């Protein structure tokens, strides 16, 4: 399959708008579960408002949240795909710009020092474009994540040492969830990275925070910590919007990587309840949305 940059551009544009308007089914199911288990009356009202908002967005064809986020595109290229990498990156950037101008969307992206907003949702190294590869024949998957800033500001890295052990990793996560309180728009998905280098550890936390609900850490030890921490954070009583209740998080997700003998890094990256993402596939048959 020869990858057509025009097709990529149109998909990049469509996915940004689609992600902002339609919440993925796993998150909707997550709301059902949290509502079932919630006993606090304020928390139940808040969860009800969030669910109502999902319906209003669909009915009025509007964005779920005003925060158009930092645009992230995760591109996964399968077997036997011919592509021009430079053209692929340029196409995604054009699609992101066009979504912003043509919808129109609020451009939430500024230069980090001058704070100048180009009104295109693009800037130096933004959108973030991650490229990976997998086994699927003649398939290119594009995942778009508009990462909201309220929860992105709930990001932390600690280079713990081996003597601190796994206990310090768990304590770090609990303390950061308390510290964030309602600022990260709970109920959240708490993404935890364990191991790697500092940058990989942070990236693992982002992968964990944006992974669909119902998926499990592929590493058995990581999966065990996911279960433990998922129960623990919902005993803190922080609740939806930090106003009390059980539903602090949908789930704690963990991703791990091997690390150095001297290192024990842990990272936290949080996803808000508007856990938006959209996925499109390009195959020889054309474009489809997952």
């Amino acid at each position, binding site marked *: 399959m020869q990858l057509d940059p025009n097709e990529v551009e149109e998909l990049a544009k469509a996915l940004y708008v689609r992600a902002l308007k339609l919440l993925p089914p796993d998150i909707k199911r997550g709301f059902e579960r949290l509502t079932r288990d919630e006993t606090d009356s304020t928390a139940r009202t808040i969860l009800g408002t969030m669910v109502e*908002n999902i319906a209003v967005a669909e009915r009025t064809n509007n964005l779920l949240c*005003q925060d158009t986020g930092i645009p992230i595109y995760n591109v996964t290229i399968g077997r036997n795909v011919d592509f021009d990498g430079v053209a692929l990156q340029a196409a995604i950037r054009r699609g992101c710009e066009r979504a912003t101008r043509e919808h129109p969307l609020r*451009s939430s992206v500024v230069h980090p020092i001058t*704070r100048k907003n180009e009104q295109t949702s693009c800037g130096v190294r933004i959108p973030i474009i991650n490229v990976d590869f997998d086994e699927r024949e003649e398939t290119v998957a594009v995942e778009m994540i508009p990462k909201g800033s309220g929860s992105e500001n709930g990001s932390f890295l600690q280079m713990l040492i081996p003597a601190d052990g796994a206990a310090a990793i768990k*304590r770090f996560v609990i303390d950061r969830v308390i510290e964030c*309180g309602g600022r990260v728009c709970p109920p959240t998905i708490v993404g935890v990275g364990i191991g790697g280098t500092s940058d990989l550890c942070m990236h693992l936390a982002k992968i964990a925070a944006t992974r669909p609900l119902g998926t499990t850490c592929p590493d058995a030890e990581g999966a065990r910590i996911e279960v433990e921490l998922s129960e623990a954070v919902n005993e803190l009583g922080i609740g*939806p919007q930090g106003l009390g209740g059980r539903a602090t998080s949908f789930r704690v997700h963990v991703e791990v990587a091997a690390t150095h003998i001297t290192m024990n890094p842990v990272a936290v990256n949080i996803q808000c309840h508007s856990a938006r993402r959209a996925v499109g596939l390009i195959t020889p048959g054309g474009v489809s949305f997952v």
Partner: protein
Amino acid sequence: MAHHVLEMPVDEAQARALKVGDTVTLERTLFGIRDATLIAMFDRGRTTRFDLKGHAVVHTAPNVRKVDPRPGNACPYEPLCIGTTTSMRMERFTRPLMQRDGVRIIIGKGGMGQGTLDAFRDLGGAYLAVVGGAAALETTWIETIEDVDMDDLHPESLWKFRIKGFGPLLVTMDSHGGSLHSDVTAAAMARRDAILAKLGAVGPARA
């Protein structure tokens, strides 16, 4: 636990009547403000032509569409999606915003800190919590954008919205020292050690 319908603007007594746990619906006028607007106003000495006295501000930067000025509304924007951002980043601006510009009510998400609580006590104000992320719903409470100032900061301009039935919103910080946000944090801190013990992870907090 009273419900208040407030025709904006309000006076000090009306602001002081709001207590944590009450609910509020706002009518008529609401201003949108956030990081860049407040930095411009209080770190760079800019002033607004809007009269904010007695008004409510919501921490927001909206999605808007550029339109031609139409009969009865000279503002060149119509609202698309308007929601609320995390308030805590704007903490140090609460007191000057109340003192210099006369703002009485702050609407946001996630709550604010001790400086804001002190300003509410000294000057008469309250914080109302919107459900963050529920912007599609919040947009249905906004009739139109009446005016915009400091639009060189777009989208972090100072926005003047005409609202209808904006709420119900929960009072989570008041002028009597009440803060639901600090209550919830204190309760979580009180549970922390028992939760960590179950995880086999007791130890001191570190930054």
